[in-house]
């Protein structure tokens, strides 16, 4: 029974992931990713991780993806490449490489005998996770480091998002290659190349 649910959620996740990759409009892509992440949250529930399922919904599908959508809309990014199925060599090469990576993963994984997981659910609740997290000194150290990382990312984001001074703008204009200046002047330019 659980396997069936697992497969169903898995199909949803894979389908949405494919939709995200192939969507021409980033907004649709972002929405597909939200659904994908939500499906993964379901998988987490099946895999004895209800806390993480909750985090998945709250942090990923909730906070992070909203941030994506917000930025996509802020920048007014609608569509990108001119072709849906680019017959570009780099597309094919990308697929080949990605496939090779997957194959190598599977090859490695199937070489190892995976013992069967214990029967029945063993739910780790908040207490269980938190106990491990805050008692192991190594993990504790990582938490501290992550705190610093988050702080730095906040500072960085604020710094990058601030209004540049006139001098800096001038400097950036100066640095800018001459070619991109002419193409990038249109006020409401789409993200990426305009359609042919």
């Amino acid at each position: 029974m659980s396997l069936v649910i697992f497969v169903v959620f898995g199909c949803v996740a894979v389908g949405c992931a494919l939709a995200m990759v192939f969507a021409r409009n980033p907004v649709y892509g972002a929405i597909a990713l939200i659904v994908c992440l939500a499906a993964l949250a379901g998988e987490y529930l099946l895999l004895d991780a209800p806390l993480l399922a909750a985090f998945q919904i709250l942090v990923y599908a909730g906070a992070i993806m909203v941030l994506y959508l917000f930025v996509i809309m802020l920048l007014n990014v609608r569509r990108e490449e001119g072709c849906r199925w680019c017959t570009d060599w780099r597309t094919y090469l990308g697929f080949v490489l990605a496939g090779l990576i997957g194959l190598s993963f599977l090859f490695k994984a199937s070489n190892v005998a995976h013992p069967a997981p214990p029967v029945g659910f063993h739910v780790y609740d908040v207490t269980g996770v938190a106990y491990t997290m805050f008692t192991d000194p190594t993990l504790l150290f990582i938490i501290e480091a992550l705190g610093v990382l988050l702080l730095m990312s906040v500072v960085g984001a604020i710094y990058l998002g601030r209004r540049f001074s006139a001098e800096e703008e001038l400097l950036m204009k100066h640095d800018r290659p001459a070619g991109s200046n002419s193409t990038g002047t249109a006020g409401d330019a789409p993200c990426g190349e305009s359609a042919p």
Partner: protein
Amino acid sequence: MIQTMHVLWLSTILFVIGTAGVLIRRNAIVMLMSVELMLNAVNLALIGFARQFRDVTGQVYVIFIMTVAAAEVAIGLALFVAVFRHKRTLDTQKIDLLRW
């Protein structure tokens, strides 16, 4: 009964899709979203192993990865906004500020 191998299959498929997204898409935001997908694929594998070994540490690491992903998204998106402000594009084929 869900076997670990099932989880790994799903994880691998998602990872491949994410990798392919990073490689073939030119829109920076979509590339970043593909990276998120890859991270999630890894999370899935970690949870599967945590279940197999009855060790909650795997789940703790998933929390860490989520945190890192959040930080990454914050910085990444801020960078995109900044780049877009003066390049007026997010096409990674057009942005070559890193060159030399």
